[in-house]
């Protein structure tokens, strides 16, 4: 996990080919033994490539910017408030929403593996699962934010959430200034995946 594949190693190509062959062989064995339904594999891949991703979370955040009653619900019982939009289940069985304010910035990590709120953010990005992020986020969060080009005033305290159990965390970033009058859909477009992990901020209007 310590080595990113930067595609600059000479053996990279053959190594990936070996993995391709290895995974194909494994899949064939599982299929021949009747352990997997090949059609289910296609549905799984399609689900996480086209249906379950960070646009789900963006919709939750945008709604919380527009609808105070929804926002209150989100910070009281995020699992239910998020499920009301149709997002629930695997790796998001219990979700807690974290409110960014002028004085607190939330940052989510899983130092022990790669726990991540799948129903609202989809599959975690490579960096989230990488040794640099997992090792540094808890000890030097401002340094990690700097890697993402984010600098917060010293007056903002950083609250890091290490996802060590089955609770999953969704950061609710602050609504960008000048976004008055935008529709929920337009607001959702401002909500980046990284802003819901805490390594980024929403786009400017």
């Amino acid at each position, binding site marked *: 996990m*310590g080595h990113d*594949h930067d595609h600059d190693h000479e053996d990279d190509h053959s190594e990936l080919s070996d993995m391709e062959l290895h995974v194909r062989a494994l899949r064939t064995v599982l299929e021949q033994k009747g352990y997997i*339904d090949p059609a289910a594999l296609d549905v799984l891949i399609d689900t996480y490539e086209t249906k379950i991703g960070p646009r789900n979370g963006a919709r939750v955040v945008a709604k919380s910017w527009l609808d105070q009653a929804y926002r209150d619900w989100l910070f009281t019982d995020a699992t239910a408030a998020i499920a009301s939009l149709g997002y629930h289940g695997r790796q998001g069985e219990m979700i807690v929403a974290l409110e960014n304010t002028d004085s607190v910035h939330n940052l989510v990590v899983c130092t022990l593996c790669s726990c991540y709120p799948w129903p609202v953010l989809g599959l975690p990005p490579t960096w989230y699962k990488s040794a640099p992020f997992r*090792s540094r986020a808890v000890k030097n969060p401002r340094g990690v934010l700097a890697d993402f080009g984010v600098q917060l005033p010293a007056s903002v*305290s950083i609250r890091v959430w290490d996802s060590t159990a089955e609770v999953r965390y969704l950061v609710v970033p602050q609504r960008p200034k000048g976004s008055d009058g935008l529709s929920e859909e337009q607001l959702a477009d401002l909500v980046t995946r990284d802003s819901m992990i805490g390594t980024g901020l929403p786009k400017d209007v």
Partner: protein
Amino acid sequence: MYESHADLGGKALHGPVIPEPEGELFHAEWERMALAITLAMGATGTWNIDESRSVRETQSNYDSLTYYQLWIQGLVALLKKHGLVEDDEVAAGKMLHPAKSLKRVLRAVDVPAVLAKGAPTLRSANSAALFAVGDQVTTRSNAVDHHTRLPAYARGRNGRVAAVYGPHVFADTHAQGLGEQPQWLYNVVFTARELWGEGADATSTVSIDAWESYLEPHS
């Protein structure tokens, strides 16, 4: 002695974090398949998520694997451990030994419902919670000889209970095949200085989610 290679919090010697665009999910075709077969085999109910984490984190070459390489190596280890697949079959790329019967097989038609249901770990309470929000607690200081979810950086530290999440399946026993043995789960917050010393950011905090047996009252 049980050795996890996954407990990375606070470890030195790691470079910068490399950001990645939002839509970039896979970096090779086999990674898609690695995701799918891992999820499909997980859905058979042969092992639980804590056992699979335990198998992954104890792979001796953990540091040298990419994420999906780790998933595949862990999957093969689980398949062998449970007698579902043998090495010669993976090498040959075909079935050489009779299949074992599984609790269930994930069918395409059931995928949406299975994902939507997930595997909730919240259980009903058999005892009162020992701690309440605001309580000062100390985490256990010793390492344990099995899978655990108390990171090394948070061992033997003083923190404050910030949330009570109810009784949850206990990862430590669940991973070892010793059953769910649910325990109260808490969010416990530490100051950065308690964890990292006086050089740390004065206002930053770090929280973990900790099962009750990880904690004792701070005296």
